[in-house]
C-alpha cells in the first residue's frame, strides 16, 4: 500500500502549482480587461501621466519590453505561452522609473529587507500567539487569561495600516523613541559592522512590533477557541484521570493537538500577512517590496508592479507549500495508515 505520506506531499505540490498557475493567469488576464485596443499604449500613457519627466529612450525601451511581454501578435494563446516564457525567466524588462536596471534586480534588493521583516514577525507572532492562546484557553478562569482575552479581542480587528499608524504616532511622535522610518541611519553603508546592525534593528523595531501585535491578536483568538474544544476531548480527560503531570497535559496533549489546525491556518493566512507587511512598509517607508511597490505606483512603473505581483504570488505559494510539508512531521495520522 502506498505510504499516505507521499500521497500528501504530491497533493500539496500539485496545489502549489495550481496556485501559481491561477495567479499567473490572473496577472496575464488583468491588462487584457481594459477594452481599449492596445494595452501597451494605454499602459505607457497611464505611466507617463502618473510619473515625472521620463527620457524618450526609456519610453521606447518600455514599449519594446511591453510588446515582447504582451507579444500582441498571434492569438491570445500564443501570447499566453510567450508570457509564461518570459515570466518563468523572471524577465519583466527594465524598470520604467529607474531605467535601465531590470525589474528583477530591484526586487532582489528590496526582497532581502521584506524577507527579514516578514519571516521574523510571522514566526514570532505565530509562536507567541499560539502559546499565549493555548495557556489562556487552558487556564480560562484565571484573571490574567481574561485580561489577555479582552486585550487581544480589542487588537484583533484593527487592520494593519491603522495599527502601523498608531505605532508611528505613539512611539515616534508622542514619545520620540524610534526613528520615523527608513531601514538604517542615513550615511551608513550596509556592512556587517555592529553599528550598522544596531541601526537596522532600531529602524526595523516599530514595523516589526506593529506586524507582531496584529498577528498575535489573530493567532491568540484562534488558539484559545481550539484549546477550549480540545480540553473537552476524551484523551485530555483520560490523561487527567491518569494523574499525568499538568505540564505534560498542557504541552504534550492540549497545545500539541490544538496547534495542528493552527499550522494549517498559518499556510492559509500567508497571503493576508504578506499584504499586511507591504502596507506596513509604506507607513514606515521601510525599503522592502511594499515600499518598492508604492514608489512603482507613484512613478507609474508598470513593469515593476507586474514583476512584484508575480513574484509575491510565487513566494506566497512556495511559502504555503513549505508550511504544508511541515504538517506531516507533527501529525502521525498523515504519516502512517
Amino acid at each position: 500500500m502506498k505510504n499516505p505520506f507521499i500521497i500528501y506531499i504530491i497533493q500539496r505540490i500539485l496545489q502549489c502549482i495550481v496556485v501559481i498557475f491561477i495567479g499567473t493567469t490572473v496577472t496575464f488576464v488583468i491588462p487584457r480587461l481594459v477594452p481599449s485596443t492596445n494595452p501597451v499604449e494605454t499602459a505607457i500613457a497611464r505611466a507617463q501621466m502618473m510619473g515625472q519627466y521620463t527620457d524618450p529612450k526609456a519610453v521606447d525601451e518600455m514599449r519594446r519590453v511591453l510588446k515582447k511581454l504582451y507579444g500582441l501578435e498571434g492569438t491570445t494563446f500564443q501570447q499566453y505561452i510567450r508570457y509564461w516564457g518570459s515570466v518563468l525567466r523572471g524577465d519583466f524588462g527594465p524598470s520604467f522609473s529607474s531605467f535601465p536596471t531590470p525589474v528583477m534586480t530591484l526586487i532582489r534588493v528590496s526582497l532581502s529587507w521584506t524577507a527579514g521583516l516578514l519571516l521574523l514577525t510571522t514566526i514570532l507572532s505565530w509562536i507567541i500567539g499560539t502559546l499565549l492562546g493555548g495557556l489562556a484557553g487552558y487556564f480560562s478562569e484565571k484573571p490574567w487569561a481574561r485580561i489577555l482575552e479582552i486585550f487581544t479581542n480589542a487588537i484583533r480587528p484593527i487592520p494593519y495600516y491603522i495599527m502601523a499608524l498608531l505605532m508611528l504616532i505613539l512611539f515616534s511622535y508622542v514619545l520620540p523613541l524610534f526613528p520615523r522610518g527608513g531601514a538604517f541611519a542615513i550615511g551608513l553603508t550596509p556592512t556587517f559592522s555592529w553599528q550598522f546592525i544596531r541601526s537596522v534593528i532600531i529602524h526595523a523595531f516599530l514595523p516589526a512590533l506593529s506586524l507582531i501585535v496584529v498577528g498575535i491578536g489573530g493567532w491568540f483568538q484562534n488558539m484559545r477557541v481550539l484549546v477550549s474544544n480540545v480540553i473537552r476531548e476524551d484523551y485530555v480527560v483520560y490523561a487527567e484521570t491518569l494523574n499525568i503531570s499538568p505540564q505534560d497535559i498542557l504541552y504534550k496533549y492540549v497545545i500539541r493537538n490544538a496547534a495542528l489546525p493552527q499550522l494549517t491556518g498559518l499556510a492559509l493566512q500567508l497571503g493576508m500577512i504578506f499584504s499586511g507587511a507591504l502596507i506596513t512598509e509604506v507607513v514606515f517607508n521601510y525599503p522592502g517590496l511594499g515600499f518598492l511597490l508604492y514608489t512603482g505606483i507613484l512613478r507609474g512603473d508598470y513593469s515593476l508592479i507586474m514583476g512584484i505581483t508575480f513574484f509575491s504570488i510565487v513566494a506566497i505559494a512556495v511559502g504555503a507549500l513549505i508550511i504544508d510539508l511541515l504538517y506531516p512531521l507533527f501529525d502521525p495520522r498523515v504519516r502512517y495508515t
Partner: protein
Amino acid sequence: MTVLQIDKIKAYYKINAYGNQRTVKAVDNVSLEIEEDETFGIAGESSCGKSTLIKVISGTIKPPLTIIEGKVIYNFGDESIYIGKVNGQEEIGKVTWEKVSYIPQSSMSVLNPVMKVRDIFYDLLKSHKKTMEKEVFNETIKEHLNSLGLPIEVLDLYPHQLSGGMRQRVIIALATIFRPKVILADEPTSALDVVVQQSVLQLLREIQNENKNTLILVSHDMSILANIANRIGIMYAGKIVEVAKVKDIFENPMHPYTKFLINSIPRIGDKSDRLSIPGFPPSLADPPNGCRFHPRCPYVMDICKEKSPLLCEVAEGHNVACFLTSEESEDGKY
C-alpha cells in the same frame, strides 16, 4: 474489609445557559459498601446517573458537577482517601492511579492521537515514579504487556493504527500497571463487537483473579454483568433500587424495575414474548416525587407517589428500595 464506602452521596449538575438555571439530580442519596477482592456490577440504563457515580468515586469532579452532600471513603488499610462535603466545603481527596485506576468507554479518541503508545506509558510512569531510567522503564512495560498477552510491537504504534480490541487492551494495561486496589470500568466494552468484547472481559476477569483487586464495572447490559460480576447494584433515575449477589438478582429479583430489566432481554432459543417497561425514563432535571419509578410501575400504591423508599436489607445480602418489601422511606417511617 470494605474497600470503598459510599455514604448518602448527592451530586448534581448546576447548568446555567442563557438565563435558564437547571439542576440535574444525577446522583441522589446513594449509599454502597464495596468489599475487597470483589467484582461489583452497576447496572443502569441511559441517564440513570451511573457514569456520574463513577466520576464521583474516581474524584474527577469538575463544574458543572458538584457534590451537594455525603461522602466517599476509600480505606486501603494503611491509607484512606476522602471525597465529599465537609461543613459546607467540597473536599476531593487525591485519588492516585496507584490505588484507584479507571477504564473509560473504548471510544476511538481516548488515547492521544499524536503520541506513540510507549510515550503514553512513559508519561504515566514519569508522573508517578519520578526516577525512571529508560532501561528500567522498558523492562517493566515489556513484562507487563507479556503478562496480558499483548504483542510488544504495539508500543511503537499510534492509536489510530490499533484495532478496537487492541486499543481497549492497551487501556487495560494502562489501568493495571501499578496493580491498583480498585479498578473502575465505565462501559468498557460497549463500543466493541461481541467476539472482541468476550476476550476483553475474560482478560479483566483473569486480572481480577490474579491481583485480588476490586473491579467496579458499570454497564447497561445485564448479560455481561451476569458473566463477570459477584454482586450487582441496579440504578434507576439517580438512585440505587436493588443490590444483591448475582444469583439472587437473576433468580429472585425483588424490585419491579429489576424484574422488567431481566425479562426484557431476548435469549437465543426462546421466542416467548418479551415486554418493555411502559413510558420512558424520567428527566433528572425534575424527577417525579416519591419513588422515581412510580409513573411506570404496575404495582404503584399511593405511598409510592409521596414518599421515596429507603434501600434496606430484605434478605441476607439482598437490599431493595421498594414499599412492596419494606415500610421505611428515606425520610423516616411512613
